[in-house]
């Protein structure tokens, strides 16, 4: 036990030690930035001071608390849009993987959807679904469809002939091969697609909010920008980053839990690398 605690202690120490130069660099950047604006090298209308941005963050989050409402509106739009887009994409990909004719006659339309810049549909989608949350959800769903579709399909179509033969030789049915071999093999790629899809869904929600909306982070952002309140605008941008990070890391967490066997191989690879480094050091 003492052995364990000591190793975690050194690891914690080294991690703490490693983070210090990063913090110093970050602080240095902020100080230079602040000085440059205060001394008039940068116009504060174009790039505001870091302290002004911090003040805007404090006001948005703590003093007025205006951000929370908009934050959750945008988060909801992106997540609901993602869920709709992802379920359509995954079901179409599964149908395409199971049936060759289906893939042949559906994929041209998916490709057409892909080469069309989905953002171009923004005005039309707003005309169709109205000024409320519906249009933002729809645009998010349209934008996140293709990366998920193509990743799932690629994952499901990669065949490991040897394993399939093994499955056949022990008498597995086609359904079993699909469920126990092809789906697990496709999951890592599916999650990669989901991560891209979440980011694009957020972009869809925000762009639709720019075009026409009454609430959401995108509205807040364009409102602040056009008031030339750059500090608040940048603070809102950072909130979008926060939404992006929340979405990305929750998908990463799911990836880690659901595709747990890759976590094992990842850990094994990491421990092998550590062993190699250790051996190299001992050898010296």
């Amino acid at each position, binding site marked *: 036990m003492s052995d364990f605690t000591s190793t975690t202690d050194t690891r914690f120490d080294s991690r703490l030690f490693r983070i210090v130069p990063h913090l110093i660099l970050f602080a240095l950047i902020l100080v230079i930035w602040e000085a440059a604006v205060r001394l008039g090298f940068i116009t504060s209308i174009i790039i505001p001071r870091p302290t002004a941005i911090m003040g805007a963050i404090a006001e948005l989050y703590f003093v007025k608390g205006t951000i929370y409402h908009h934050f959750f509106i945008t988060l909801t739009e992106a997540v609901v849009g993602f869920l709709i887009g992802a379920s359509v994409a995954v079901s179409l990909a599964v149908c395409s993987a199971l049936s060759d004719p289906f893939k042949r006659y559906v994929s041209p339309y998916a490709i057409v959807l892909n080469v069309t810049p989905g953002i171009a549909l923004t005005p039309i989608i707003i005309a169709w679904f109205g000024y409320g949350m519906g249009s933002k959800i729809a645009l998010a769903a349209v934008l996140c469809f293709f990366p998920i579709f193509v990743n799932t399909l690629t994952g499901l179509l990669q065949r490991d002939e040897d394993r399939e033969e093994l499955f056949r030789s022990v008498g597995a049915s086609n359904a079993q091969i699909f469920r126990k071999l092809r789906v697990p093999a496709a999951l890592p790629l599916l999650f990669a697609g989901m991560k891209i899809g979440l980011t694009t869904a957020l972009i869809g929600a925000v762009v639709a909010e720019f075009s026409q909306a009454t609430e959401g982070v995108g509205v807040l*952002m364009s409102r602040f920008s056009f008031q030339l309140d750059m500090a608040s605008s940048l603070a809102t941008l950072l909130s979008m980053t926060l939404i992006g990070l929340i979405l990305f890391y929750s998908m990463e967490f799911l990836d880690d839990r659901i595709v747990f066997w890759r976590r094992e191989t990842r850990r094994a690879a990491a421990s092998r690398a550590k062993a190699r480094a250790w051996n190299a050091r001992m050898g010296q």
Partner: protein
Amino acid sequence: MAAQDTMTEGLSARSGGLSLRQRRTLLHALIFFTLIGLWEAGARLGLLDPLFYPRPTSILNSFYLIYIKNGNVWFNLYATMSLVIAGWIGGSILGVGLGALVGFNAVVRRFLKPYVIVLEATPRIAVAPLLIAALGFGASSKIAIIVLVCFFAPFINTLSGVVNVNEDKLELFRSLRATKMQVLRKLVLPDAIPVIMAGERLALTAALSGALVAEFIQRDQGMGALILVYTRNLNMASSFACIFTLTILGFLIFKGMEWVDHHIAYWKNEAGMKRIGDRRRRQFGAQVGE
């Protein structure tokens, strides 16, 4: 190719004169025209509101209007595409340069990593209103938006292309005492260039999206403004014609980048290798002949 031809010939003998490919093309066309026909019929029978869901024939008519009769699409197409190209070139130079700088320098890489993660999670297109406020209306802010939107894919791909060098190959190069320049030219670049090209392809698509968003906000000229104005006037048929124009444009961009990729990264495809091999063989033959 030849084997496939003989196979389809064998099939065509059985299926009454039509090859497999012809039958598939026919079925594709049949499905396509059935969908279009259903759409048209639905609109004509009043199941689809023509105000929001225009008939295919009226979209075709709009194509005629915006391309030939009024011809107003050309100017806007030119405006958008010149912005896209300018922004894409700027973003590519920035992305590849920064990616190479970061990729070759481990210290810079370590210190830049947290910022890259933050930048990756930000919906980068969201800076559009901010940049417009900072740089004013007009081409400069549009190009800045496009540069910012499209620099990221080449940056990440250059970085990963430069960093992910095959360790075994690198050891082989070292054991043969290759210089740094040789390692770069003969090991790093041949593996990195296809990855960088893939990033460029993504960047061009992103550039088009960035230009559209910039035009949606500025509403002065370009395809984005055109689509917005047509939709606001509920002239949906023309709006759809513009979107299908962008589809064609996207397809051309996709095919064009594929072609460029094919020729720049020639060692990744057989035809390119054969071309080089033939040329070397000819040169060798000429040398031996002397």
